[in-house]
């Protein structure tokens, strides 16, 4: 074989044997009740629903379906805990509990990672290296704030709001629970948490951890269920604060229902993040960044870099390398430690991704799809890139929330900014350039809550996160994240 023929050989010839993490590590119970007043109990209606593994559609466990009666019981418990216990604890005492929770999450991290991967479908590499460590980090970080609220920049002795109702999505189940609970508890609130219908399990393991940490009864209550459970929580008159992460559609409904009430509200909603690539970008790292931006967590990320805006002069080269890299992604068993892209979380989400990608084709975009083999059972979607996308295409405007990237081009920095901002959303953007002055010029003009430079999808508890416009309002993380739970 000549050197030239050799150069055309394919990547990945060292075939990796399966390296699955054991599902038994999850130690799942056949059924879980509601976590109210420090105890697990049945729903008032005794209703249950199945939570399944999206990678094979098998039932993992039965979970209680909370109705308005259960939500009321949870809110009463939270109110009682707030009045009698939590509002009287010192910051240092609250800090002690948060540190305990953080350490227990670390101790049970392997179990939590497997639970998360089973319930959500995300690769174990991500739940192990991202979700769980970051969840622990959020508790550690806010544990540090609990006794320093006087110095958080909100004036002396800032007061908590009271009872917080928190509704979280299915894409990062435990991490979102941590984002919500840690600052709320540090600031002195008590909580009623409603996990997503398709991914309730890690929150229920967290409930066990709260018991282990001997958190006073009722300080955190966890009610599982569908949208009606969330609605009951939003509508409950004795809730002082609603924090919601999820779709823009539901966020809008919540804002209407809490309008003209005493309830404080923060919303973290959808996005259509633009990853802007200039011709002087560090090309290899940029390709990895684009991949991380859209295929991390199967693209089920509200801040995903789902629009790639690439300078026209380098578009062909970027697309060539991108397509080659997409082909290399390892799609399959989420429990396999070498899997890069896992299962789509639910049949409903898979349907939405299929619908929107079908629009992409009918609207005339050029589709590249990974030739990876997909498992027979479960919900799967092969990593996909659309080139030749126009700003007016639906796949350039609507949030797909799946492993689908839309590639658009621009000619000048002005045009890049204009296209990036031409969306109803405003959650996150990325800028790729070796030229610092241009990066800053562009960043100043982008309307997005989070802007990454030469990286994407990096999270840290010290850094505030949140959106503008239809991506919501309020910040989570950092000193700013405390404001959402203080009466300031």
């Amino acid at each position, binding site marked *: 074989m000549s050197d*030239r023929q050799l150069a*055309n050989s394919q990547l*990945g010839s*060292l075939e990796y044997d399966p*390296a699955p993490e054991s599902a038994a590590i999850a130690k799942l119970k056949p059924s879980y009740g509601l976590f109210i007043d420090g105890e697990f109990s049945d729903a008032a209606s005794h209703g249950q629903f199945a939570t399944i593994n999206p990678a094979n559609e098998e039932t993992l466990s039965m979970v209680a379906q909370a109705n308005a009666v259960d939500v009321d019981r949870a809110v009463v418990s939270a109110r009682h805990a707030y009045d009698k216990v939590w509002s009287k604890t010192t910051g240092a005492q609250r800090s002690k509990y948060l540190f305990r929770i953080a350490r227990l999450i670390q101790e049970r991290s392997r179990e939590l990672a497997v639970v998360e991967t089973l319930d959500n479908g995300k690769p174990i590499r991500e739940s192990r*290296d991202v979700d769980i460590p970051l969840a622990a980090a959020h508790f550690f970080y806010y544990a540090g704030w609990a006794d320093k609220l006087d110095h958080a920049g909100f004036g002396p002795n800032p007061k908590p709001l009271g009872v917080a109702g928190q509704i979280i999505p299915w894409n990062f189940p435990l991490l979102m629970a941590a984002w919500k609970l840690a600052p709320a508890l540090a600031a002195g609130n008590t909580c009623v948490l409603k996990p997503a219908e398709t991914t309730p399990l890690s929150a229920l393991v967290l409930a066990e951890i709260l018991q282990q940490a001997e958190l006073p009864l009722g300080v955190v209550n966890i009610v599982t269920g569908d949208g009606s459970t969330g609605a009951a929580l939003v509508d409950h008159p004795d809730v002082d604060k609603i924090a919601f992460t999820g779709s823009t559609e539901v966020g809008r409904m919540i804002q209407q229902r809490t309008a003209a009430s005493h309830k404080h509200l923060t919303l973290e909603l959808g996005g259509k993040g633009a990853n802007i690539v200039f011709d002087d970008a*560090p090309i290899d790292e940029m390709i990895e960044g684009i991949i991380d931006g859209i295929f991390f967590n199967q693209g089920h990320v509200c801040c995903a870099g789902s629009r790639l805006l690439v300078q026209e002069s380098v578009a062909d080269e970027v697309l060539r390398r991108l397509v080659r890299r997409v082909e290399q992604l390892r799609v399959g068993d989420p429990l396999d430690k070498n899997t890069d892209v896992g299962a789509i979380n639910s049949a409903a989400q898979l349907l939405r991704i299929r619908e929107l990608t079908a629009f992409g084709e009918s609207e005339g975009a050029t589709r590249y799809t990974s030739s990876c083999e997909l498992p027979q059972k479960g919900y799967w979607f*092969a990593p996909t890139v659309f080139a030749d996308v126009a700003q007016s295409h639906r796949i350039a405007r609507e949030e797909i929330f799946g492993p689908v990237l839309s590639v658009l081009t621009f000619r000048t920095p002005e045009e890049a900014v204009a296209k990036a901002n031409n969306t109803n959303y405003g959650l996150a953007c990325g800028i790729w350039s070796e030229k610092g002055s241009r990066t800053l010029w562009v960043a100043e003009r982008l309307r997005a809550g989070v802007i990454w430079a*030469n990286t994407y999808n990096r999270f840290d508890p010290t850094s505030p996160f949140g959106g503008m416009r239809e991506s919501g309002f309020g910040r989570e993380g950092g000193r700013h994240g405390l404001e959402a739970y203080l009466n300031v």
Partner: protein
Amino acid sequence: MAARGVASVVQVSTAPLRLVTEQDRSVQIAATIAVPTIESEAQLKALLTSLSGVDAVGADARAAKLSTRSIKKSTKLAAIEMAISMVDLTTLEGADTPGRVTSLCTKAMRPDPRDLTIPSVAAVCVYPDLVAHARSVLGSSPVAVASVATSFPSGRASLKVKLMDVRDAVSAGADEIDMVIDRGAFLSGRIGQVFDEVVAVKEACGEAHLKVILETGELVTYDNVRRASWIAMLGGADFIKTSTGKVTVNATLPVALVMLEAVRDFAETAGPTVGVKVAGGIRTTKDAIRYLVLVNETVGSTWLTPNKFRFGASSLLNDLLMQRLKQQRGTYVRADEFSAD
């Protein structure tokens, strides 16, 4: 400046993509940039400047991410045997003697005398004065004799002396020459000199293969590593090699990543597939497998052969042998089960 090569355009295909609909683009996208003949230092400088920069944070992150790959069972066994066949078993000490080299060569040909299915290593690597001896011990075995030359490790001698060093080693029977680049010249911007030396040494090598040591621990930045890689490849290197093993910082995963990206891009534009050798500080099977994963997922199967990827190491071999036995038997054996050399 010495001129070399003829500009050519190579069509490099990407992996085939599944056709999903009629609108799928079935044509493969090709790179069509040609590497020009280098005729002046200014031209070389312009070419190096046109290379994309390396974002250090991103390169480190990519290397770290790939190092979490879990290589088990038959893949692990295959990777261990592959790694054994890629070892340049090395002794580069002032205290080296014919006796020591004999011992090393014997080990190189038959790493474990109890199991003849174990492949021999790729080469033994010695100083030029011991090449003839190594050659005579290795005889007709497939193990090559590699010799460091060009005033290894510092490279601080005149070109005349360096070339004599190379010719000396080649005439003594060296199959491969590991030269060092002039880091002083590189860091002071005299890249034409670095290029010319590579070209001159390549010529002095004759039939012998040329490995060009960049000494990345002294170049420090990844941008420098990428540029030095290109100078070496443009000058005619058959391999680019990270380190001498004689400075504080030797091979690292991100440096290897940057060099692998360089050989990939070079092959896609100019033609020849240049090999990569990582050297210095690689002692365990775990380390070796991490490098193989890096090769596998950056440049692919073309480079997963001793002709295109090497480990410069000495103690690594015994760990590979021990882990191989562990894979087969399920239990570890004592280190003394394996010969020291």
